[in-house]
């Protein structure tokens, strides 16, 4: 996507901190990125890196009972969603930005028929008579590939399989033809055989509504396949961003290299797996300087990594940005071409 275009969504220096009685969890710590019209932006990173919290903050959907502090800007349609009134944010939710959540098993109201929940999504923004809403609801279920939509419309969530629930969630998400779909690991909770089907449905939904999509995933294979651009997150920070080709062919951050290297790959006849050593930091106690330094192969104990937090800087080549003091030493490092990844990555 061209950099000249106006972004649809622009996140600027977003910080989200959860306060508990004893500690402060900095789940998102100065995240900035843009989403352009029509594109699919992949957001990757290990569990707990702040992917969900970032995107939930966009819609201000962090559970209201938590003590949470958010700062920064989330610009959408010329408005800062963090400052918008309750009324304004309600008009955005579902209508302009829709959420397709991580776990379809827990995301449908168990005591209401699915059809009624789909209808609710339609009627939230449009004054539609019940019969018309019903007709459109059944049609939506059909669009996302639910068999016998009329019958399933009247069923309860517990009568649905996991894949069907996720289809229903997608139906609700596309009900108002939003301009942005946020898909938070839409397939993680599902059977491997179902995952590909669900991604097809999601792609079709995106095509139909011509929406942009933010696709959160652990699954680099899926990202390689779906995304136009990629944002890599670590411990509440963006550590690298670039278009999808660049990310996979010439990553410029040790963490991204590690992520790609930790994929199960086939080199010759040998399968090998090289996980990143160590584990993600405790967000209540993030390492000083570069948050990745305790696990970084490149740092080799150099002081600046422990002391100074690296800025996310442009590498001069298009949109490619990286937050590493020694990015120059990665010059020429390559992982593998995205094409090769498709077959290698276990999905």
């Amino acid at each position, binding site marked *: 996507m061209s950099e000249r275009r106006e972004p649809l969504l622009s996140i600027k220096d977003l910080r989200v901190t959860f306060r508990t009685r004893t500690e402060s969890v900095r789940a998102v710590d100065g995240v900035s990125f843009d989403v352009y019209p029509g594109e699919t932006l992949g957001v990757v990173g290990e569990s707990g890196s702040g992917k969900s919290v970032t995107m939930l903050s966009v*819609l201000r*959907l962090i*559970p*209201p*009972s938590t003590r949470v502090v958010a700062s920064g800007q989330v610009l959408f349609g010329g408005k800062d969603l963090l400052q918008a009134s*309750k009324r304004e944010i*309600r*008009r*955005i*939710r*579902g*209508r302009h930005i*829709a*959420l397709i*959540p991580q*776990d379809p098993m*827990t*995301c*449908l*109201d*168990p*005591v*209401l028929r699915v059809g009624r*929940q789909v209808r*609710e*999504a339609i009627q*939230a*923004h449009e004054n539609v008579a019940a019969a018309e809403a019903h007709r459109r609801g059944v049609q939506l279920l059909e669009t996302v590939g639910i068999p016998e939509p009329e019958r399933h419309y009247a069923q*309860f969530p*517990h009568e649905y399989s996991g894949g069907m629930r996720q289809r229903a*969630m997608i139906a*609700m998400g596309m009900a108002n033809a939003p301009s942005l779909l946020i898909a938070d690991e839409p397939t993680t909770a599902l059977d491997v055989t179902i995952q590909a089907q669900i991604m097809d449905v999601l792609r079709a939904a995106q095509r139909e509504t011509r929406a942009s999509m933010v696709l959160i995933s652990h699954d680099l294979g899926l990202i390689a396949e779906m995304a136009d651009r990629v944002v890599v997150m670590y411990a509440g920070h963006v550590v690298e961003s670039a278009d999808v080709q660049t990310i996979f062919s010439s990553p410029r951050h040790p963490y991204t290299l590690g992520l790609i290297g930790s994929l199960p790959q086939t080199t010759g006849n040998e399968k090998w797996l090289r996980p990143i050593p160590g584990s993600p930091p405790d967000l209540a106690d993030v390492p000083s300087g570069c948050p990745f330094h305790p696990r970084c192969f490149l740092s080799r104990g150099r002081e600046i990594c422990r002391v100074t937090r690296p800025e996310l800087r442009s590498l001069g080549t298009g949109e490619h940005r990286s937050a590493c003091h020694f990015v120059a030493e990665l010059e020429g490092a390559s992982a593998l071409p995205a094409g090769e990844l498709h077959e290698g990555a276990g999905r």
Partner: protein
Amino acid sequence: MSGFLTYLVRRLVAAVITLLGVILVMVLLVRALPGDPARIIAGLQATPEQVEQVRLSMGLDQPVPVQYWRYLVNLAHGSLGTSARFGTSVLSEIAHRLPYTIVLAVFGTLFGAIFGIALGVLAATHKGRWADAFGSMLGVAGISMPVYWLGILLIVLFSVKLRLLPIGGADTLSSLVMPTITLGVFSMAVVSRMTRSTMLDTLDQDYVRTVRAKGVAEWVAVRHALRNAFIPILTVIGLQFGTLLGGAVLTETVFSWPGIGQLLVQSINNRDFPLVQGIVFVFAAMFIVLNIITDLLYSVVDPRVRLYR
């Protein structure tokens, strides 16, 4: 539907067995009285002839199994025996008074349920703010306030000072107000606590987030959360209705409400054992039926609940 019938029959059989146990305990209790039960029932002033009369008429000369059997045979003929005091049928005494108690218990339950749920929802949606604090204050007050004390407080305020409501009796609809409040305040407190804690949980659930993500008004999300909180709330309401029958004893005494609670107190004072037994039996039967109804309601509220398979 045949699955449902099997379920119902199973529950009813269990209910009958429970009631058989209740009757056995009652028969044994009369036996367990120190001294001669016939003399106790007939009273200290009674002549020996009168005592013998009581002994015969109550079957106290018979061994326990025979008494038990007689009670059951009577019951099968629709009789709960004869009141030792009034000489009338126990059943008709109870039938006279029962409607008053049921009306009171229903109103008390409704009061507790409506205000309890409302308070609980208010507290949960305003967690940590003054509405929450106010709600929990009312809750603590409601749970710890003795019925007698609250009843007298209300009488002093509304009858003596303001002269708005009658002190007691059951003559007009306004007579119902104070007994309802007195009886309902406790269950209001219990229901509001349960509602608050369950709602705090359901309001944070993913499916409520889904509802909010649709862009509906917050009260719609609250409604989803409440609907999902209903099972535990319904359970305490069902249990409360049972304890309300007991609470009716005190409330009816304070407000001279002519229900079976009052009758129970009177018949204990009169040592009218057949009447006491009859009332206890009816209380037990009602409690069991209520439990069955509550369980049936679960499956109405939550489509995942299958009572039978």
